[in-house]
């Protein structure tokens, strides 16, 4: 899938650039984009390392076991293949909590830790592709359910909004609808292969 998307992205760009006469800009964009990736990693590496460190303390100190117990009803359904693997479930719970609190730069490192733990658990099956639980976990993260979107609120306040948070109910409704659509679509497509 990722192969096809990548080739598609590049083919469409070259086609469109030829059509709109932006070949010069396109050739610059190739290496600008690659450079941006390295800059991005450099700028988030510190936060990634710090949050993964906090995650380890939470695991060792039992804080994530508390979250695990609180979120059990959700994780049992979301990640049934890993429900008996505390490493997966605890990292996933920390990721869910970070998402809910709107801590975007904490959610990613914790999500990656959860993916790594899932990989370790089912390494023998991964030649056939991602597991159903992994896909549900990623869909959940792309839909990002957050209680208070702090980033957006500050952007709105900076733009002079009279009430930056009046849109909260609409955001909750929309993320819930998006998340359910994503999870239902994943469920429907599950049987096709693997």
């Amino acid at each position, binding site marked *: *899938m*990722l192969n096809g998307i*990548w080739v598609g992205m590049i083919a*469409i*760009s070259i086609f*469109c*650039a030829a059509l*709109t006469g*932006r070949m010069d800009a396109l050739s610059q*964009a190739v290496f600008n*984009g690659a450079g*941006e*990736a*390295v800059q991005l*990693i450099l700028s*988030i*590496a510190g936060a990634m390392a710090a*949050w993964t460190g*906090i995650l*380890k303390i*939470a695991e060792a*100190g039992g*804080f994530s076991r508390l979250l695990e117990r609180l979120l059990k009803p959700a994780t049992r359904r979301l990640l049934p293949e890993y429900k008996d693997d505390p490493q997966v479930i605890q990292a996933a719970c920390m990721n869910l909590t970070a998402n809910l*609190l709107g801590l975007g730069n*904490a959610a990613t*490192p914790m999500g*990656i830790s959860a993916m*790594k733990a899932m*990989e370790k658990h089912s390494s023998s099956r991964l030649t*056939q*592709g*991602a597991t159903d639980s*992994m*896909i549900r976990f*990623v869909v959940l*993260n792309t*839909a*990002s359910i*957050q209680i*208070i979107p702090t*980033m957006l609120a500050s*952007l709105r306040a900076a*733009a002079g*909004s009279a009430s*930056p*948070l*009046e*849109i909260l*109910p609409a*955001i909750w*409704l*929309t*993320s819930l*609808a*998006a998340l359910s659509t994503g999870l239902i*679509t*994943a469920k429907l*497509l599950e049987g*096709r292969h*693997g």
Partner: protein
Amino acid sequence: MDKIASFLVPGCIALVLCFGCFRRVPVFSVFTQGAKEGLENCLSILPTLVGLLMGISMLKASGAFDVLSSFLEPAMKSLGVPSDLIPLALMKPVSGSGSTALLTEIFSSNGPDSFTGRVASVLCASSETTFYCTAVYFGSVNIRNTRHAVPAALAADAAACVVSVLSVRLLLP
């Protein structure tokens, strides 16, 4: 509200540390172990990120978004989506910084409290950067066969697009 938000990160860290100290965990050495893992994870997602951002930067420079949005405009209009939002809806799954730039543009041209400004806010807050998220998560464990992950995530994005218009109509008359 801002006060609460600024307590969030220090509060979470304090809570985790309290648990750790209470259970007599050697917190600093555990932290550094985790930090090392975090840095290794950064390295493991970097190749994926280089490929992805290269493709996205090419897409942006080629004008493909303009071509696509003018193509989609009639269909979106019949669904009641304001035409200013189409580039944002297309950019949102692909690039976080790109969609933030478009959002601030909409704020300054339409105002944050206009219908378009509100829908744009809802759209931006109700989904993550889909391609970034899928590429990074699967890239970190070296899975190339992502099966139905991308279609499902894009279905969620499409739903967010439609429901953001509906919910602003419904909840913020």
